[in-house]
């Protein structure tokens, strides 16, 4: 396995690097948390990094010809190709370095994809990439819970009942999207026995995300991070609440912050406090009712949603495979 860069854990917000490698020039919506994921990701990874980006908002809105925000080398990849882009880039570098055609050096390879590109279309390519123990690569799925770039259509990662342009609320059918959001990170973790690091994250907890990126890039082999990204356009709320919604997703227990290192599950942030009983989960209604995409919900829909959250916390975590450790106290 190729050597990795020296990227120590960041010990506090004051120690976050000041350099920006994702700069002005992008054209994402105000309050776009996915754009913040990009910025935090590359801040943590640093300059000796190649970034590959799948089609989606983080390509189309981000990388307009002549005004790219990327200071690091960046390349587009096809909608379902985050896994293949990471594999091809890592393989090309590894082969040439081994054969003496390129200077030996650990170069970070990060491929990102949206939920449409990763949770749906690119799932098989991501899965295949994560089997390559011989390459160091990180795949980040930024999940804004819809095919946002094409006008907010339901994906396999859209929550039950959400109003999208493919699942509108109509006169006859109130709940068009009857699918449950896929459980992506556990699916990845359980399905790839040799992977050393899988995590969930949220840009509202920037330092946590920074450090997860660094752990992913330094542990060796293929790694995966799944981020939940409030999207003002798709979720229908005032952009100034993006951060708050990200926090609410976790505080209500809907999104769970964790990392799985060598098969051991550790909860982070509010999720850990909830699991330890230090903190109570907020009712999911607080989160749902802040967003236009759930405005059509009746009390029974909110209850249905709440019941699913209860079920998640009480009945199943990652069934059968991973011992749960609440994590150390601060």
């Amino acid at each position, binding site marked *: 396995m190729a050597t990795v860069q020296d990227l120590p854990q960041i010990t506090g917000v004051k120690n976050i690097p000041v350099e920006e490698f994702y700069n002005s020039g992008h054209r994402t919506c105000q309050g776009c948390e996915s754009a913040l994921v990009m910025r935090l990701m590359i801040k943590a990874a640093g*300059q*000796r*990094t*190649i970034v*590959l980006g799948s089609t989606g908002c983080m*390509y*189309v809105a981000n*990388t*307009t*010809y*002549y005004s*790219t925000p*990327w*200071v*690091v*080398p*960046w*390349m*587009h*990849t*096809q909608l*379902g*190709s985050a*896994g*293949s*882009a990471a*594999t*091809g*880039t890592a*393989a*090309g*570098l*590894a*082969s*040439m370095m*081994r*054969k*003496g*055609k*390129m200077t030996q050096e650990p*170069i970070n390879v990060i491929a990102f994809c949206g939920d449409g590109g990763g949770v749906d279309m690119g799932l*098989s*390519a991501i*899965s*295949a990439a994560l089997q*390559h123990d011989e390459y160091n690569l990180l795949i980040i799925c930024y999940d804004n819970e819809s095919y946002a770039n094409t006008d907010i259509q339901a994906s396999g990662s859209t929550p039950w009942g959400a109003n999208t342009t493919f699942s509108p609320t109509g006169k006859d059918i109130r709940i068009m999207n009857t699918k449950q959001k896929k459980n992506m990170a556990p699916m990845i973790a359980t399905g790839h026995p040799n992977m050393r690091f899988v995590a969930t994250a949220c840009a509202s907890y920037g330092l946590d995300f920074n450090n997860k990126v660094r752990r992913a890039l330094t542990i060796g082999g293929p790694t995966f991070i799944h981020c939940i990204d409030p999207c003002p356009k798709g979720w229908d709320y005032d952009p100034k609440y993006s951060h708050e919604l990200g926090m609410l997703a976790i505080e209500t227990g809907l999104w769970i912050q964790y990392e799985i290192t060598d098969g051991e599950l550790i909860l982070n942030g509010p999720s850990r406090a909830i699991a330890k009983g230090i903190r109570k989960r907020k009712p999911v209604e607080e989160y749902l009712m802040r967003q236009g995409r759930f405005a059509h919900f009746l009390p029974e829909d909110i209850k249905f949603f709440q019941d699913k959250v209860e079920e998640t916390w009480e009945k199943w975590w990652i069934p059968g495979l991973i011992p749960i450790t609440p994590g150390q106290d601060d």
Partner: protein
Amino acid sequence: MATVKPRLYEESKEELISGSEAVGIACALADVDVITAYPIRPYDTVMQYVSRLKADGAFDFDFIIAESEHSQFEIVKHASAVGARTFSGSSGVGWFYAFEAITVTAGLRMPVVAMVGNRALDDPGAFGVEHNDAMAVRDLGWHLYWVATAQEALDMALMAWRIAEDPTVLLPFALSCDGSFLTHSQAIVQVPSQDQVDRFLPPYKRGTLQLHPDNPITIAPQVNEDWLMEIRRQTDEAMRRTSAVIRQAHEEFREIFGRGDPSPFIEEFMCEDAEIILVGMGTLAMPTRVAVRRLRAAGKKVGFLRIKFFRPFAAEEVQEALGDAKAVAVIDRDYSYGSPSGGGVLFHELRSTLYPLDKRPLMLNFIAGLGGREVTVDDINMMTETAQKAIDTGKIEQETTWVSVRE
């Protein structure tokens, strides 16, 4: 630590090998860095061969068994962007499964070399050769070449990297090899020495287009109507430039390796003074040459023109070769349902090529050998007779004929 490059062939020597093995040896001689594989008949014999070379320590490369053809081609596209020499391939529906990746490979100017083991596009299930699979890239900026022998497969694979990676070209190269007839049939092949190959094939250098932290470029930003037309135009110009690059490479190839037709684009067989010229691609050259030789012996003025490069298409050379014929009979191992006169793709290309001539030959089209059905000497005789009848009567009774098909 950099490894020492294994040297497979110190001396040039003869080997009894299949077309797929010939391409596999070319991969090793070219010191390819990344190869991606996915199983589908008949092309995958080349991947079985290179994986064996790797297992035996004869050839050092990163071998990735992709989980689909789409990934196969995406992976080599990205490896090519960081400067790695790449090889991939597919057949039939596998090639189509990869089509999105294949399309952008040309759009991004990545000089990936791919072997297409031509296969019918099932359903209904069929393993045999048809040219519609490879043909689908003809408009996209891929070089597209039809091979006739195992020797040519090896030679053209080496040519492929040389041409595709030329800094003035940077366009991918599809090496089309007829399923079974070429991929699986063995023939004596003169394998060149590593020294000869090293003299002919320079390393792949992307220069300022290489994706690397020392060269932090953004590849494939969103351009829309602002710039797309200019970028398409650049690809068009690269495709125009490649003809001269091909000629130059061909000349040097002949010098270093001591073999090769006079033209890299076409092969003329007994075309001089021919009144009827048959035109075709790939391995049907064999029965056609046999038939033409016999017809010549019987005093008939018949010739055969083999189109080697379908892209770029050497229109002027083809006009020159066919301009004096009275009738041209085009053999298509492909179909284009609903096209003008229901003709095949090659036929339309030829008819369009000859249209500007003052004196145009009569043109007939024969759809033959689909799904791997054999094209026989008798079939070629029938085509020649039909062309002769058209010359005698000055009339074409039927523009497109499906050959030896049950009615």
